[in-house]
């Protein structure tokens, strides 16, 4: 029995491109249930970033709606988006995007909302992601894998409904990349969250529950992993 945490419904988005219009997303729909991790593959320019921006409340769709845990968040005024991002969405960016001047512990504390201080224990999170040793380190003193795991911890700090990851393995070698995504997967499974990973890294697809491809603005379901 699982509930849908992310529901992107019939979303279209086009950009002005010189004379004409370029449709980046065409009638894209996807449902991701609690405890599910899905990948969206596609070549660069296929609209992956646009999809992630719309799902992540950074961009409004021309048409269609976005639901997070059943709430129609795309209907909210733009001024409320920042709150939705803070408390309901966990972002993992390409190249970690940690703040260079904060130690790992502070990276987490600085972004944790007050109401989640009792819900999510920072120390446990560090332990779970195996970065307790980085607790008092600046990003410049950490390995690529440690940095990305810190970024994963940061994404989980406000117990969000959904995790959105933008090329999380881009700056990592295949072993470390795989480990990072394994950690996202186990965190999602353990907490019953929904995760969408936008990537072109085929080496992590074995960790996905479902795989989609974005081609010419259309989302096509690729091989569905068999549950055993």
């Amino acid at each position: 029995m699982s509930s849908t945490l992310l529901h992107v419904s019939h979303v279209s988005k086009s950009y002005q491109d010189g004379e004409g219009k370029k449709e980046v997303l065409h009638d894209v729909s996807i449902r991701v249930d609690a405890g599910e991790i899905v990948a969206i593959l596609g070549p660069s320019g296929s609209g992956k970033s646009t999809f992630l921006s719309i799902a992540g409340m950074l961009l409004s769709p021309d048409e269609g709606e976005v639901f997070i845990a059943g709430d129609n968040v795309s209907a909210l005024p733009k001024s409320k988006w920042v709150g939705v991002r803070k408390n309901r969405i966990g972002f993992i960016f390409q190249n970690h995007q940690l703040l260079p001047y904060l130690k790992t512990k502070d990276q987490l504390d600085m972004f944790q909302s007050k109401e989640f201080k009792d819900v999510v224990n920072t120390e446990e999170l560090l332990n779970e992601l195996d970065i307790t040793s980085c607790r008092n380190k600046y990003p410049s003193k950490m390995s690529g894998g440690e940095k990305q795991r810190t970024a994963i911890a940061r994404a989980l700090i406000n117990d969000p409904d959904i995790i959105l990851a933008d090329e999380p393995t881009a700056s990592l070698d295949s072993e470390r990349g795989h480990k990072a995504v394994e950690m996202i997967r186990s965190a999602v499974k353990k907490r019953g969250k929904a995760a969408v990973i936008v990537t072109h890294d085929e080496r992590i697809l074995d960790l996905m529950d479902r795989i989609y491809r974005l081609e010419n603005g259309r989302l096509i379901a690729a091989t569905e992993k068999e549950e055993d």
Partner: protein
Amino acid sequence: MKHAWKELIYGKRKYILIELLLILLMFMVLFLTGLAEGLGRAVIAGIDTMDAEYYLLDDSAEKLITVSSLKEEVYEEVKSMTSSSVTTLDIQRMYLVKEGDTEKINVMYFAVEPGSFVEPSVMEGNGLSAQGAEYPILLDDDFKLKGIAVGDTVYDSSTDLPFTVVGFTKDQMYGHVSIGFISTETYTELRTKLNPMYQKSYHALVIRNGDVDKISVDGAALVKKADVIKNIPSYTAEHSTITMIVWVLIIISAVIIGIFHYIMTLQKRKQFGVMKALGMTNGTLSGVVVCEVGALSIFAAAVSLGLTFGMAAAMPQTMPFYLKMSNAVVVLAAFVVISIFSSILSIVNISRIDPIIAIGGGEE
């Protein structure tokens, strides 16, 4: 705020350089303020430090002590009218010559009644009431630099009247000339030597405390001390020019600081984009910037204050440097406020950053 503090600590090398720049700018402004004030003091100190409220000057004097003239009787008349303290003042510019020397030294005689409230406090030696000297003179300590000491005899260059230096006072100048205080008696003698027809009169009556409103003399008017100062020739013009220069400097320096912070904001666009994507509001981010600018400028203000007063203490006496703590604080507070105000430029820029730049490789 914690966030701002952590960023400052992490980027200490960069921020120390900025801090240095801030300190130098503030120091420059403070130092110039001190010099400007000092220059102004050289014109007005003699009157400004006088413990007086009003000056009685004749109507035709245009509020200028040196061209005013009051008959001798007026003094008695005024004294009988009021319970205020009243005394006399004459100002005359002349030259002094040291014994056995020919060099003329500028002096501004302030002729006062010995022991009256306009006689300044003595720093060294005695006041004008000192026994034993026929013609006592109390000099500003600038004269020490000319090699004059207590007990020396100095001569008035045009009358050869021999003064005995009974003591020194300090910070006493008028119209850029150092003051020598002499008694009214000595002054009358001096004038009589210059002009045997001299009729005793006073430039001004100086009044303090009590019921000044009872004083009314035909052909003379009470002028407030501040008004007298304003009307000292060239003072207002000089002072407003210099004040203007100082304020323009304050504003320009603060704007430079604003631009500095703006450039730093531009460099951190992606960082701000990420922070916004992660749910930090414009308000929070603006708070961080204001805290950083505030902390940097307040710290710089404190350091430059210490530096300025340290420097002032080490400076030779001839430098016309005068800075009241209250003035310094006003200048620095203005500096801090304008700096913070100019960081609005950065805040506007931050509020315009679209957090979407956090997604994708994008601009770095």
